[in-house]
């Protein structure tokens, strides 16, 4: 149409620069986009009090955030920016510990607990919460070892589900939702449980976090259970599986039209039937091959699998 002069181009550039500068002025909250990016930069942080028989006060980045947090308590989520922070836990008349920690995940648990060999002071371990989408109607179970015990196995119905977890470690799995009978035993041993068995409800479409805390010596072994909702993926259980449409299988084992064999209680074919089946399977494969060539030639429409 028309070639813009240098002057106009300069003007447009200046205008564009001013416009961008205006947009950039408050770089944080100029609309939905940056609001969500700011939200993404914040993480939800739960403080988990895993030291039995004491209340603690919690200071984060020099600011008192919680006082008299009792044993087994999980705080409501705090909003903290990703990156480095400091936390101080102080027990009345007990100890005072200060730790630095780094937040990388969207959701974390900052857990105060005793180390495997109890010392003067507890320690702090930061666990990321795995909020990846979960198959619909399943449950994510994550069990962490934060107790004064050696490496341990987690058993469900007295069978080892998670093996050899050391203090500060965790194991997680996506499992069918339900109530599980869980106990904790020394790794590789099946004798006396260090904790449990207890009935642990594991809810569908959510993350169930369990922190094993305390020590057997003073009977303070316990479990903190935290539950976080999860987004789901996958599809629900099918109501029917239609996996055949030609009736070719019937000839293999004498399943005839009209259902003279009521198959519901049949526990598989007998040996004789199997031999007959293998022979007829062979014949049928050849037959079906020939059929499919013919059908292919006729280029008939593929019927829906019924």
């Amino acid at each position, binding site marked *: 149409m028309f070639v813009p002069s240098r002057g106009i181009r300069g003007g447009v550039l200046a205008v564009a620069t001013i*416009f961008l500068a205006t947009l950039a002025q408050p770089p944080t909250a100029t609309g939905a986009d940056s609001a969500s990016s700011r939200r993404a930069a914040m993480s939800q942080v739960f403080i988990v009090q895993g030291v039995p028989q004491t209340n603690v006060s919690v200071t984060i980045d020099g600011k008192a955030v919680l006082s008299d947090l009792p044993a087994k308590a999980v705080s409501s989520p705090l909003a903290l920016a990703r990156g480095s922070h400091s936390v101080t836990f102080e027990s009345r008349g007990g100890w005072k510990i200060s730790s630095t920690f780094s937040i990388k995940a969207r959701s974390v648990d900052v857990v105060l607990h005793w180390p495997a060999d109890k010392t003067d002071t507890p320690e702090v371990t930061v666990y990321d919460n795995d909020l990846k989408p979960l198959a619909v109607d399943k449950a994510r179970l994550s069990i962490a070892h934060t107790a004064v015990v050696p490496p341990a196995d987690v058993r469900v119905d007295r069978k080892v589900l998670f093996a050899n977890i050391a203090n500060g470690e965790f194991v997680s799995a996506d499992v069918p939702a339900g109530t599980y009978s869980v106990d904790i035993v020394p790794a590789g041993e099946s004798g006396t449980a260090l904790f449990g068995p207890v009935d642990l409800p594991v809810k569908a479409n959510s993350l169930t976090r369990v922190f094993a805390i305390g020590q057997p010596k003073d009977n303070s072994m316990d479990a903190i259970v935290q539950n976080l909702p999860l987004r789901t993926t996958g599809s629900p259980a099918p109501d029917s599986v239609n996996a055949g449409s030609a009736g070719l299988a019937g000839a293999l084992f004498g399943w005839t039209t009209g259902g003279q064999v009521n198959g519901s209680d049949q526990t598989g074919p007998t040996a004789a039937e199997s031999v007959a089946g293998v022979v007829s399977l062979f014949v049928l494969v050849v037959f079906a091959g020939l059929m499919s060539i013919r059908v292919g030639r006729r280029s008939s429409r593929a019927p829906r699998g019924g």
Partner: protein
Amino acid sequence: MSGHRRDSRLAPPVVALAVGMLCLVLIVGILVWFAARKPDAREAGAASPAGTTSTTSGEAATTAQSPTASSPTSEAGSAGTSPVPTSQGPAGVGRAAPSQAQPQRPSLVVLKSQTTVPVRVAHTGGDGVLQLPVDVRRAGWWDGSARVGDPLGSVVIAAHVDSLDQGLGVFAELLGARPGDRLDVKTRSSSQAYRVQTARLTPKTSLSASSPLYSAPTQPRLVLITCGGPFDPARGGYQDNFVVVATPVGRLTGR
């Protein structure tokens, strides 16, 4: 400013346009700036539900804490006993135990005859029917079922026993499966052996969404499904499903 002076040498409509745009941009800019300040103020006030909790409890903390903060020091001072144990340093990072499984969806089934069956992802449709690959040489893994390596739950894989235009499918071999038969399921990077426990017909109506076959809260297992039983075209074809249930043998290995 210099841009404006240069513009003045141009035709009046262009100048007017440029000035107009400049004004518009300035107005938009100011509006955006104001709009941006408001959420800021709101966030400063509310921060987030969590933030509010922390400030209120923080206030509670300061009032409740004054005795808290003084008592240990006074105790320590008056009693002259050992000082309050303190520690400093970086927090630990929660690590997965070495036994942590890395489950993956199945990508291949190896039948007893060593026939390998590629496995695709299968979705349950809105009508509740599992959408299987049309190709009778392939199987579908229900995407709501367990993955190989999950410690509990059913890995559910189904395939057509036959089709009119393709003849018998690879899963027709399952109709001859016997307890004790070996099957292998492979994922992208691992392999798991299974041993057949049961192989039987079950009426299609019994394999509804609530079937215990789909959920196995006590053990990991493999559930292979195809069709079988009497074929009645007037009643939708096969009247039964043929279901093979197998349990893992040994550990998950590298592929």
